[in-house]
């Protein structure tokens, strides 16, 4: 039997069936892979958070920093020593942060007390090509930045995309996390180098990425806005050290 492929009914039926079959195939594949994809995303997020919460080798039971642990160790550490906590609940500053404890963390939503090793604060905002999301960690008294990690970005590979690389991110380790003086910033990305402790940029500056000025500026803006929002939310959680106290 010869099919008339120009008949309107056939044309509509063919278009509908082919669309249904192909989209159905993709949906089935996606459904089959969904659990693995969710696990991968969770593992990547946990790995990123563990990397900036457990910065020193002595912070983990294995004598290695969080960035050098394998998947099993990351899961163990995340389950036993890290808790997701809501701060400033019920206010406009409500925020969910991750808290790392020096010993096994209490179950449920634990209180934030002296057993805290570091806090991981979510950061996010619009960059050059798209949104950047990630975390920045702070010491328990908010005086020192432990590290920064990005979990989502779509900047130019080789240029803005370099923010993912350790050589850029490692510059944030040990920077001041205290509230900056008026008109100052928590972190400066690029610009003149800071000489002398009185300089507002002292221990607050990292090198920008050559050829990626827009991304570097975006990182500076995102980190500063996110840290300012956290400090608002954290009021009452703990008294942050002042600039004078950290000198």
């Amino acid at each position: 039997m010869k099919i008339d492929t120009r008949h309107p009914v056939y044309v509509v039926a063919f278009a509908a069936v082919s669309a249904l079959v192909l989209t159905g195939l993709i949906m089935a594949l996606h459904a089959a892979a969904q659990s693995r994809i969710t696990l991968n995303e969770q593992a990547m997020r946990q790995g990123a958070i563990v990397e900036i919460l457990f910065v020193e080798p002595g912070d983990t039971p294995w004598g290695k920093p969080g960035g050098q642990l394998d998947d099993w160790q990351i899961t163990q550490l995340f389950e036993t020593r890290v808790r997701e906590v809501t701060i400033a609940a019920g206010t406009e500053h409500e925020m969910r942060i991750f808290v790392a404890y020096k010993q096994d963390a209490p179950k449920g939503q634990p209180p934030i007390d002296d057993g805290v090793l570091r806090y991981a604060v979510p950061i996010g905002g619009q960059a050059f090509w798209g949104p950047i999301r990630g975390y920045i960690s702070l010491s328990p008294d908010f005086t020192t930045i432990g590290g920064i990690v990005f979990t989502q970005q779509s900047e130019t590979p080789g240029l803005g995309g370099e923010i993912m690389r350790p050589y850029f991110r490692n510059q944030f380790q040990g920077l001041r996390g205290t509230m900056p003086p008026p008109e100052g910033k928590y972190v400066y990305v690029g610009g003149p180098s800071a000489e002398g402790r009185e300089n507002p940029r002292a221990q607050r500056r990292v090198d920008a990425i050559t050829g990626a000025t827009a991304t570097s500026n975006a990182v500076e803006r995102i980190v500063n806005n996110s840290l300012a929002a956290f400090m608002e939310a954290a009021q009452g959680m703990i008294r942050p050290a002042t600039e004078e106290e950290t000198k």
Partner: protein
Amino acid sequence: MTATPARLTPLTAMNSQIMGENPIFRQILGICSALAVTNLLFNTVLMCMGLIWAVVMSSITISVMRRWIPLRVRMMVQVLTIAAFVIMVDIAMRVWAPTVHVQIAAYVGLIITNCIIMGRLEAFAMKNRPSFSFMDGLGNGLGYAGVLVAVALFREALGFGSLFGYPLPALDLWWRQWTIMVVPPGAFFVLGLIVWAGRSYTLSREQAAAGAVESQVKK
């Protein structure tokens, strides 16, 4: 007098697309991705693997269905087919290479809009058997990949002083960063040189072949 075209076989279908009808330097197709992804070799190779998969599988699928596809909706069916195979690449990367997926996810989606795939489905797979279409798709994918890898070799070496992320030897002695090679406009220069070299080579081969046929006819 021009050379008589060779009889079409799966092998000639593939070979012609790698050199004589190369999608990049003869047909000037797929230029957007050639500019966007070629500053790092690793990303380039992944993009090329994704494109080869998508063009080969789409070609086979459309070729198998070619007698039943109504002409009025053929382009819709072609785009749907391409999108399905590209989304498979995306899912596979999210399952098996999630860290790589974070870096090049934006480019994987762009394979759908690559004119090479649509062009081959429309020009070849809709008119030829699956075995021929498979080889034609493979030839196109390899021709595209060859040029992109060549561009990436120059751009990563000159822009970053590395290949596949590994630093080149004695960088301090000879290397100065060419920032323009890192950004997409740098690819215009490298691509222009490769198109020039590729076209000169294929034209010289065609002229030599035409000359050989003419001398045969005179005898």
